[in-house]
């Protein structure tokens, strides 16, 4: 699964700084992180990607919307709900670290985009959305302490099962 937290101010993202920034992560935990992939030459692309064994973290620019993309490649253990909770907690930790290290970069907490990387098992259909919605809502509540999150499915059938998570005012 993936989740993207959008930055508050896109101008605060100094793209040329992210390779050296993620290099620090790589140096600190060489067993966790494998390398850095620089996709700045691709417009509206994956930006700078820190490639890991279990997950990737990127300062991502897909669809021209900069944000931190956290992408899990090996699922956590437990029920669907437990997995999502663990995933969101990890996402939250990474976001907090970036904000701590780069005070100019703030992530929006009122909007995030959650996606399931499995069109075979979870097609982008109302049924598949219904199957995960309760777990996702409940996980958001547990991980972020938010009890009024609204979930809306991206209805473009070509997309992965993608859910916009919004937290009103």
């Amino acid at each position, binding site marked *: 699964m993936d989740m993207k937290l959008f930055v508050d101010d896109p101008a605060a993202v100094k793209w040329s700084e992210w*390779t*050296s920034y993620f*290099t620090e992560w790589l*140096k600190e935990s060489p067993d966790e992180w*494998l*390398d*850095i*992939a*620089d*996709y*700045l*030459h*691709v*417009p*509206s*692309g*994956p930006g700078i*990607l820190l*490639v890991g*064994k279990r997950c*990737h973290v990127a300062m991502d620019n*897909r*669809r021209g919307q900069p944000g931190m993309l956290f992408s899990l*490649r*090996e699922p956590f253990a437990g029920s669907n709900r437990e997995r999502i909770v663990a995933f969101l907690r990890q996402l939250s930790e990474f976001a907090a670290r970036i904000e701590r290290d780069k005070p100019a970069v703030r992530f929006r907490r009122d909007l995030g985009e959650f996606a399931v*990387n*499995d*069109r*075979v*098992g*979870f*097609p982008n259909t109302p049924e*598949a959305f219904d199957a995960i919605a309760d777990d996702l809502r409940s996980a958001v509540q547990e991980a972020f302490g938010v009890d009024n999150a609204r979930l809306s499915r991206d209805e473009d059938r*070509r997309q*992965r099962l993608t859910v916009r998570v919004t937290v009103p005012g």
Partner: protein
Amino acid sequence: MPEAIANQELAEKFARIPPEFARHVEVFGIEVERFREGSVPENVFTEFRLRHGVYGQRQDGVQMVRIKIPYGALTAEQMETLADIAEEIADGVCHVTTRQDIQLHFVKLADTPMMMRRLAAVGITTKEACGNVVRNVTACPEAGTCRDEAFDVTPYAHALAYYLLGHPELQNFGRKFKIAFSGCHDKPCGLANMHDIGAVAVTRQEGGVTKRGFKLLVGGGLGAVPHQAKVLDDFLPEEELLPTAIAIGRVFTQRGERKLRMKARLKFLVEKLGIEEFRRLVLEERGKLEYDERWSSYENTVAEMTEEPLRPASQLDAADAPDGFARWYQSNVSAQKDVGYATVQITLPLGDITSDQLRDLADVSRKYVKDTVRLTVPQNILFRWVAEGDLVELYRDLQTLELPSPNAEGLSDVLACPGTDSCKLGIASSRGLASELRDQLSDPSFDDLSHLSIKISGCPNSCGQHHIADIGFFGSSKRQAGHVAPHFQVVLGGQQAGNAKSYGLAVGKVPSKNAPSFVKRLLDEYRSRKTDGEAFSDFVARLGKEQIKSILNEYDALPSFEERPDLYVDWGHAREFSLQTGTGECAGELVELVQFMLTDADRWLYESSLHLEKEAYGQTAQLALQAMVRAADALLTTHGIQPRKPEDTLRDFQHLFVESARFYGPFAEFIGKWMAHSPSDMNEERARFALEEATLFVEEAHGVYGRMQIQEQAQERPAPRTQEPAPAPEGVQEIVDSLDLKGVECPYNYVRTKLRLEEMEIGQLLEITIDDGEPIRNVPASLRNDGQAILDTKKIGKHFRLLIRKDA
């Protein structure tokens, strides 16, 4: 793979996968599972996964997946599938390669079986994308639309690609094998001269009829030691294309180097034998081939493969064209031979396109063309059959997708291999330098030089085709006072035109970070000093190495780390450079055919056990028998005997392994016993017996092969030298052995002779009896070629008896 497929649309597509592709996918999934359980040796699995397009990256634990797209032809549906897969299991980027493949990076092995299934559902396979096999067959992307071609090579490239895919005769090469098609001699699109086989379309008149054929080139290749191809045949008739490819493959299998990987490509064999002898051997093998109806059946499809436009022909009206259109039109659009239509190149930065872009591009393609999209060797995408009146609208759509870059195949459209981004062999960051050059040379002020090309490889192996660029680079390094700085060797004056007709020359190296300044300085020099119409390669030749070197000297100095630490950091990196090359997988693992076949037998046993669980007893026994036959065939290959019918296997196996007591007799009986059973009279008990006995048989086959290897190693080990070697015996010598090879076909008579000679001492004599005809023409010549002496040849009835002395 999940048991249930929730996606109904995909489930329906999966149900339509052609059986052959479905089997590839199934076998791959089983083998991945068996490898994870520790049931398959790592070297065998490595070559196995390579042959399915799964390649270990520089970074531990992640894979690059190479997806074969024959001659680069893609449908909109395939583009969408590739986009989806890249998004779900890779990093959201599809990379177009110089062999018209698509590569995905940072993929986990566990995700690959389902990926293959999804690709198979849209008619794509990754089989034989890597490894020591026939790689993706490439072709000029303009084939069928080009004004200069002799004829459209597409149907021929298609027929050859699928005929050779998994062909049993081509599974035991010492190295990879690359084939390219070109529609004409003069343009660079096909690059036929740098391929193992390059087929250039030609026609000739025969009795007032235009006959199609190919100028067939062999033994070309880049790599660290580039070779220009040699002409095998000036006019190979179209119907001879497929069998000749098999004959070439046979010669490569039989004669190609297998121990020295650096010398194992076909180019070295052609060089060693000379083109005349190579041609003779190919013709000889061609003569032995039994007719296969597929050699000509595809000819019926040649007319059917003609493409059609989606929209009616029309003329360009650029009155309301947006800014940038004229420049883009100049560099990215070519008129087709069909009036009112054009081909359009979509420039991809470093060959990369995001999943979102590729998915949207599929939609754009549906709007303008009818599934006539091709990937190009220079790592771009080509739309064919675009009505000229649609060009402005198409350009606007490409602007929306952020894909309106001009200068396709021009100076700023720098081509680069993956280099240190993902390849284990990469020395310096080829993509990092390419990205920098792209940025610095994209300005319109360089448009007068847009006919020049820059190509970059991360190491000397030339995946970035640096030998055929006007300005080429390959990765290198230089050490100073304990620090290492990334460098690039400069190769100047290569020519892509004429199907890559000449290669450039290395002139020296520069620190990587100085390379852009050097390029701009060299371009200034060219711009100011070239004579009218002088090509860059001619300019470089006129200047000479000395003058070029003097320009290079302005940039080649390496100050100390303390003075210029930036020179010790590669492009796109933040840390000090270090050399971290590993063992590349481009060469594949050299796994003997016998190992592969024994692994097949293991897999069939495994599948047999799955059927037993499902109470499918007939299939259990059938697979168990299949496993035994495969294991016996595997052992027979060590005697040069190729698998044929099961009854032949049984006979030869009995003769060579059972009668000689090399295979444990009681286990050997199982194969004959289960051949006599009908799968229809199976019950649980019998099926279980079949599986258990087959397991014992296959295990014993592994044991026999293991013992053979130990014997071989013992023979290869040099004996302690206590005295000078004895001189060659004089006078009467004893004949050590005699082989009766009557009725044994070529090349198995030769292989068996060779194997026996390998067991003998230098100077010892061997007598063999062979048939008249091909055997007497081939075997002595082959033995002489190996360095053995034929002391005597006697005709005895319909046979010949040869006396051979082992001299080599």
